[in-house]
């Protein structure tokens, strides 16, 4: 038996460049990165279509909302109700090489409320952090065995959701609410490189390389809120939210082989609405999230505090085909918490509009919200997307 001698240093040096490549590869956060790949993903606002059309408010919204920003707002429901919101968006990712179109589908929020005397009991299921993305690239591997064209697929599938229980109490013109939510969900990371036969030699094949990992998310969130009527025409609402650490447990093939923990932000949101006239209502909301507490240890990601604000106007004077159709318009702005270390923080802004309709004899409401906006700037933030999001909410026995 022969033992390797000095020759070992040779392949060490030969492989050094490759080692660097392996370690450096996941760090790449460049101008081809969608926002769902930044940090912990894209924070999905837990709002229904009405709130989305009104500038993404969803706090202290007159008439109640299936948004899930403040448990105290449940006191605005006097009947049992349940509502769900889908919000697919089409996206154009701008890169240095050009624009690419894709889309994202999200089940944003489901909110149920059960009134009992002055109490309101709520159940909500929300999307919190969207981590879905899928990228394909093609290239050619040139080796001493031959030149192999290949197609490589990298995919992240999953995200963080929450399941929350809330209790609210109506105390005169005031509403008090608390909510406890479990953060859950998982993320599946997939890599696959499929090689074609060598150029000019169909019998020369090297197969493929693949791998995948699955992470399970867990954590807790606690939220308390207060809402109050101001006169008969106004509502003011505020909530504060705190989290435990978000824990990611690597669980591939059923074996936990790694755990990471992330600090989560303290959130404050304030909003309200006022009925200006019999046919116009004005809504506005804003908030602050201390995402800068979140440290990223491994990849070259950064996080920063987030400020968001939005507002909109609702007009309820239109009837279409015999149905009352409220029209809404608004604008919103929000910072995004995650960005590549060599870039600046991203922000997102959108013009919003939408409408609603009461159907089934008033026992159900169908609301549309459209958001047309953009996020980031490819030169300064490394990621730039334009998007059109359509929110669709269906509520039953909501009023």
């Amino acid at each position, binding site marked *: 038996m022969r033992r390797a001698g000095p020759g070992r240093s040779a392949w*060490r040096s030969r*492989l050094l460049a490759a080692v660097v490549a392996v370690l450096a590869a996941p760090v790449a956060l460049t101008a081809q990165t969608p926002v769902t790949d930044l940090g912990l993903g894209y924070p999905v606002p837990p709002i229904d279509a009405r709130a989305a059309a009104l500038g993404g408010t969803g706090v202290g919204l007159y008439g109640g909302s299936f948004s899930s920003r403040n448990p105290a707002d449940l006191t605005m429901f006097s009947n049992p109700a349940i509502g769900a919101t889908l919000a697919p968006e089409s996206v154009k990712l701008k890169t240095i090489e050009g624009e690419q179109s*894709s889309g994202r589908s999200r089940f944003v929020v489901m909110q149920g409320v059960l009134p009992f005397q002055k109490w309101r009991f709520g159940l909500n299921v929300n999307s919190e952090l969207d981590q879905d993305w899928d990228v394909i690239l093609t290239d050619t591997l040139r080796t001493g065995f031959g030149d192999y064209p290949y197609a490589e697929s990298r995919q992240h599938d999953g995200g963080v959701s929450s399941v929350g229980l809330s209790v609210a109490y109506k105390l005169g013109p005031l509403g008090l609410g608390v909510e406890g939510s479990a953060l859950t969900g998982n993320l599946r990371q997939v890599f696959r490189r499929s090689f074609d036969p060598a150029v000019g030699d169909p019998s020369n094949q090297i197969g493929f390389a693949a791998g995948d990992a699955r992470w399970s998310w867990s954590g807790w969130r606690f939220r308390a809120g207060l809402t109050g009527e101001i006169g008969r025409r106004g509502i003011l609402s505020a909530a504060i939210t705190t989290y435990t650490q978000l824990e990611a447990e690597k669980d591939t093939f059923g074996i936990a082989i790694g755990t990471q923990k992330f600090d989560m932000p303290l959130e404050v949101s304030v909003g309200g609405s006022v009925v200006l006239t019999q046919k116009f209502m004005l809504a506005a909301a804003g908030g602050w999230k201390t995402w800068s507490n979140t440290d990223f240890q*491994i990849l070259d990601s950064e996080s920063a505090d987030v400020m968001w604000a939005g507002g909109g106007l609702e007009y309820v004077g239109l009837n279409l085909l015999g149905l009352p159709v409220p029209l809404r318009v608004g604008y919103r702005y929000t910072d995004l918490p995650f960005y590549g270390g060599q870039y600046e923080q991203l922000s997102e802004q959108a013009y919003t509009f939408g409408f609603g309709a009461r159907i089934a004899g008033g026992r159900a409401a169908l609301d549309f919200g459209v958001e047309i906006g953009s996020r980031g700037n490819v030169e300064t933030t490394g990621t730039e997307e334009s998007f059109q999001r359509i929110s669709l909410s269906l509520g039953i026995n909501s009023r």
Partner: protein
Amino acid sequence: MIRKAGLFSLLASTVVALGACTEDPFLAVDSESAPGVATPTLEISLEVGELPSWRDTTYWGFVVPNSASFSLLSDQEELRARPLGRFSTIPDSVFVDTLRLAIDRFTAARIRLSVDSALSELPTDSVELAAWTLSRSFDADEATWELAREGEPWTTPGGDLETFLGADTFSFEVDSLGSIIDTAVVRFEGNVDSLLTAWRESDGEPGFAVVLSGPGGVLRTSVMSLVAEAVPEGLDTTVTIVRGALPGTFIFDPPTPQPTTRLRLAGLPSARYYMDFRLPDSLGFIPLRGSTINRATLEFRPTAAPSEPFDLRANIFAQAVRLLADPFVFGEKTPIGSPLGSQELLRPDSLASGNTMRYDITSLVRLWSLANVDSIPPLRVGIVPIPENRQFGFWEFFSEEDGPGLRPVVHLLFTPNPTFLLP
């Protein structure tokens, strides 16, 4: 009705809106700038001295002249060769129509040689082929130019020729039709009946030899047979009987050189080379075991051509095979398993130019990479000529005993498992 129409319109527009948001993947320009986990596909060549362990050796004797599919006849200075044989199955009766009749006598006999003109070095001048009886029996597995059997030398090297049976002169020239004769017949002279009867009663002992006389040329024959004319009892006709030489072998001089530390393939006795080796579990920080093995080959650099007449002169194939036991314990008896990769063509002109021979062992290294046990036996591979019984010449390759740059190489193309991370 109007309300239902309105509701339908809303639902339809919803479906259209949702359908417009399909989740297509983004197309990235290159691996470096694409998001997500990347793992490179790496190529590395490890000379055997860089491996945790490597052993190689040549074993020979898998095919000897007795089991080869050919015999050589030559009267050159650098190679003398002559077939030996025994006609041990001469019958005492023959079928005539539906009757088996005893043979009354043999009236004529000849030895017929089928010449493989494509692989022979045909003499340019006329040569004589002569048949002789032997005065000393031989062991077909052990006979050499010097020995009739192990420990028993010929009185005269090259076989103890006793009685001249016959001879003929041949000229291997292209005839008017463009073909070359591929059959040589040497007719027996003298009392054929007495000779064949004696061979029949002694199972062909002690045997015969065919001797080529004449400068130049190496005739390669594939079949050597006895063709005899027999007269059945009670009939005045003859019946032709054909019998092969059993056993049949050939002896030659000089003997095939003994294998050295070089790795030999083919030749007579036929040689294979076996090796066992271990691959490193990791290369620096990069784990090799557990990685996806895209391609793995063993590469051998050829030496210069062996000296004449033992240089491989025709294309042959070679195959890497899995060895099922330790070749350094079981030697040439090591059982071989399934083939690895495809057969590789060995071309003497390419080998003489120094072109490396590569053998695909991807499937074996993949198994090693996936093995989920702590103690993995060495990888064991044999290189086998195909077909194994048709080459007189051989070729050799550098082994672990040779210097850097010449030794065998394990060439790998592999993709380490991606390291999936969160930020």
